[in-house]
């Protein structure tokens, strides 16, 4: 009897504890579904019904012919302070105010089976008292080309075209194609194309083969050059190998790699060539081709990029070329004139070492605006420029861009040699 009593008490306790745990587990907390207060979407509700639907049969790829006309109009205001140049324009010493504008108009013709045509018509106007009014209007067709493909296995583009050849942010040593160079102060500017035929043969998503037959300034077949590139994406790296072949000119070989490590995007480009490049060797000024010897030369760029999407983006890039200048007398106007005449002077690519940094903070200092600092420095002479600015987007199509550009270094240096100290630059861009 005693045992039965004990058993009943024990059973009661077990049952009580079990019931308690179940009751406790069902102590349900209520939370609001939407924990925000909004304007546009505050009437959104959760739809608990799950309806079964049938797959659509509509084709989403537009199959009819179409013509699109778009463009961008830019208005610039530039105030150059303490301009006291002994280079290129040695007599000017006043501060200078300029207003000018330009526009790119894009025409895009679409046909079936991926056939299309494209044209970029550039229109620019310079408002400068030193420029005759007859010459102040610039009209240029930056690009016009036709695209077609062979059953989506090989893609062809023929005409005047700008090719993105290399992934570098500012320097592209493996760019064996383009003539127009990136403008440090306007990196998104549409660049002028070169004439030729591009062939792109994809092999799945991971590998691609490109050829470009360059007919720029070619009067006869022997003037043509052929650029090729093969790229492949391996485990977590994308590699590219490229070559430039041109008669009576040294071949060039390029290698590019991009990967990511610890949240950083890392990429590098290397080009090597052997020949009588119209370039100088160290401080020995031998820019005349007949006085120069064959030698191996190379150009290397490395960049590292970190980004928190829509918040902060930081890019650092370094450029090195074996045969760049370590020293150069930037006050020697005849020397600089000669370099310009020989097409040797390429801004931001004349010395041995350069580096640059690009920092953009989104939504700062307030909403709809971005603040950026872009710095470019010639490592060898210590000069450089810093572009500090902010952009404000009033509506998606209209952007204001204001920046202060500081030039630093000795007066005998690449960036200070022009005599510039500070530029105040404003730009209004309208996209349509």
């Amino acid at each position, binding site marked *: 009897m005693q045992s039965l009593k004990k058993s009943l008490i024990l059973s009661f306790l077990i049952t009580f504890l079990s019931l308690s745990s179940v009751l406790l587990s069902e102590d349900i907390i209520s939370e609001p579904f939407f924990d925000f207060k909004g*304007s546009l979407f505050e009437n959104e509700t959760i739809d608990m019904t799950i309806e079964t639907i049938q797959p659509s049969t509509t084709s989403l790829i537009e199959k009819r012919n179409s013509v699109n006309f778009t463009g961008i109009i830019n208005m610039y205001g530039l105030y150059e302070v303490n301009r006291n140049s002994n280079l290129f324009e040695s007599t000017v010493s006043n501060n200078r105010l300029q207003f000018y504008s330009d526009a790119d108009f894009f025409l895009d013709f679409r046909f079936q089976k991926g056939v299309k045509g494209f044209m970029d018509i550039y229109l620019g106007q310079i408002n400068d008292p030193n420029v005759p009014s007859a010459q102040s209007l610039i009209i240029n067709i930056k690009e016009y080309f036709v695209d077609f493909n062979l059953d989506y296995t090989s893609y062809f583009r023929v005409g005047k075209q700008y090719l993105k050849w290399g992934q570098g942010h500012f320097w592209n040593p493996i760019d064996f194609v383009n003539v127009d160079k990136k403008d440090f102060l306007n990196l998104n500017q549409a660049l002028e194309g070169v004439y030729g035929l591009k062939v792109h043969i994809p092999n799945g*998503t991971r590998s*691609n083969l490109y050829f470009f037959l360059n007919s720029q300034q070619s009067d006869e077949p022997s003037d043509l050059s052929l650029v090729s590139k093969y790229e492949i994406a391996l485990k977590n790296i994308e590699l590219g190998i490229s070559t430039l072949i041109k008669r009576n000119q040294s071949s060039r070989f390029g290698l590019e790699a991009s990967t990511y490590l610890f949240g950083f995007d890392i990429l590098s480009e290397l080009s090597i060539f052997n020949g009588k490049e119209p370039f100088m060797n160290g401080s020995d000024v031998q820019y005349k081709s007949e006085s120069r010897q064959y030698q191996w030369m190379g150009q290397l760029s490395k960049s590292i990029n970190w980004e928190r999407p*829509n918040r902060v983006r930081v890019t650092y890039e370094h450029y090195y070329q074996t045969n760049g200048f370590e020293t150069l007398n930037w006050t020697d106007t005849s020397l600089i004139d000669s370099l310009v005449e020989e097409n040797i002077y390429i801004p931001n690519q004349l010395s041995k070492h350069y580096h640059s940094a690009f920092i953009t903070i989104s939504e700062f200092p307030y909403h709809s605006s971005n603040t950026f600092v872009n710095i470019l420095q010639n490592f060898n002479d210590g000069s450089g420029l810093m572009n500090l600015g902010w952009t404000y987007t009033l509506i998606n199509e209209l952007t204001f861009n204001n920046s202060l550009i500081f030039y630093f270094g000795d007066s005998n240096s690449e960036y200070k040699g022009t005599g510039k100290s500070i530029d105040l630059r404003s730009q209004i861009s309208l996209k349509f």
Partner: protein
Amino acid sequence: MNDKTNYPVSNNRPLTITIFLTTILIASSLSATSLKLKPSINKILKKIDKQQTIEKDVTAKVTILQQDIEQGIKQMESIYFAKGSTDQFLIVMTAPESEKGNGYLKADDHFWMYRRNTRTFQHISRDESIAGSDANTSDFETPKYELQYKGKKDSDNEDIIQTVNLGKIPAYKIDVSSDLPNVAYPNLTIWVRQDNLLPLKIQNKSYSNSLISTQYFLKYSKINDKFIAIKQMVIDNFEKGNKTVWEITDITFSPIDNHIFTKAYLENLSN
């Protein structure tokens, strides 16, 4: 005599055992009922993945409506292609004109972002927001919660699963984290429906557990036994007031040619 005195004892023993066993059975069944209502976090994650993984090729139209507190409302449209048997997808922007032609191409661990104005294919490691909105490319990937995230546990190494009512909907609330470098958000708080374990709401959090954005799954549709969240909303908790709603329409399961998932095709669609 001894036998007599022992009778009651021998009579009570089976009864005691019966009561005790019955009690244990009742208690066990109550506990089992309680446990059955709470699947493990791993099971929840596995179910989310399984229910939403579509093994067929998918083409769909994605409309993104973004409300920016200063710039107003922006509507974007894109076409989404996904190769069911692989981890490939392609998103091509079709509107507005300023975004048209930009695209996102993914194959396994490789992700390229194409910018029309510079004709650049940027090979990047991270997820990217679509056209600056709060819709992320990871939102269009085959879900891999089970592989990428682990549930948070208490001091007894038991899964922490809360039973809550989200609005009026019975839900489970779980916290998961990931130490993988390429996930969009290292910490998540997920609310799933109790009846079918479909996500209702996800809070996306940083390494330090600060709230970045909140994702609401407003409507699901069932196509060929798979669930697709055809309407979602993301609230930007960083920039208060910014909201993005996207809707998926015109879903097809027709086979997609491999040539779609190439840089050449994306560039051809663009300029």
